[in-house]
């Protein structure tokens, strides 16, 4: 649910990074934070455990520039990926404008990926959203690891809607900005449809 302020000429969009635990959602935000000019970003806030597992969410505000005289702000959130934090995941999806699903490409994580996509669908439904309609991009992360599933196979299993997908190696930044740009574009075009 975006927020348009005609007085300060600003528009805010909420993008949520979803996916199984240890898949690289936080790493995506950390890379974006590292590579964004200081004047375009706010603080990266991580509510994490002592072992750096996401406990509630990570948050990164970005103000990348203007479109037609309106300052466009993106608020990036990650959810905690671990299964037992489902109550927190539901809360973070409130008011979402676009979703990035960060899948772990390793063969042994395929089941966790599938479970997480299903969980995303159910949690979105509870908020009144439809995963088949919402702005949505897929990222197949960890493509540098040896034991990974072939792309066409992952895509068949995780991406029946066939949304735009990207290969990624998040710590090195491969695919990170492409994924963000893709979902940002869809979210802004959604506004164009509505307003």
């Amino acid at each position: 649910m975006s927020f348009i302020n005609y007085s300060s000429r600003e528009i805010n969009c909420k993008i949520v990074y979803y996916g199984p635990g240890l898949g690289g959602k936080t790493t995506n935000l950390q890379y974006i934070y590292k590579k964004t000019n200081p004047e375009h970003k706010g603080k990266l806030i991580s509510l994490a455990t002592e072992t750096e597992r996401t406990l509630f969410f990570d948050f990164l505000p970005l103000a990348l520039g203007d479109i037609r005289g309106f300052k466009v702000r993106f608020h990036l959130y990650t959810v905690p990926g671990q299964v037992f934090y489902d109550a927190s995941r539901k809360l973070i999806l409130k008011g979402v404008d676009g979703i990035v699903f960060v899948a772990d490409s390793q063969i042994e994580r395929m089941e966790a990926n599938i479970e997480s996509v299903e969980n995303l669908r159910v949690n979105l439904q509870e908020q009144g959203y439809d995963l088949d309609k919402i702005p949505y991009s897929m990222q197949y992360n960890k493509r540098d690891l040896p034991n990974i599933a072939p792309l066409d196979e992952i895509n068949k299993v995780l991406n029946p809607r066939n949304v735009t997908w990207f290969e990624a190696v998040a710590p090195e930044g491969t695919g990170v900005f492409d994924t963000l740009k893709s979902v940002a574009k869809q979210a802004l075009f959604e506004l164009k449809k509505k307003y």
Partner: protein
Amino acid sequence: MPGLDLVLYEEEFKQVDAELQKLHFQANSKVVFLVDKNGQLIASAGETQGIDTTSLASLTAGNIAATGGMAKLIGEKEFSILFHEGEKDNIHISVIGQRVILVVIFDQRSSLGLIRLRVKKASEILGRIFEDIVSKAEREREEGKVPESPFAEISDEDIDNLFK
């Protein structure tokens, strides 16, 4: 899509802003700000320099969402007021009309009693303003009246430029 996007025009923004300024003054607070339940800052008043209001807004919404989740688990609708006491500064958080969150930061120059009193009064007025905003948006939608959009002409190129 559930609910309506929050669209704030100049006139309504001025009303909200004036109410926040009044509350800031009357409650003798340091900072007052208003946040969308999704964590987006709507307006603020007071000594906001040196405070990361964007992060504070997001964490406030997370806080309200988390306590709201707790409320549901014990059969409450929501906890509409939260209060955090610090050594010097305190934060009073309240939910208005189930839609926006009012945050007041204050120190020893004020008191919890005064804050509660002033917040209650301001909440009634702000609640009405936001009710009007929502009903106006719904009315316009029903009449098929769509506000002139800055996004109607948006192009791929515009978005590409953001990521250069």
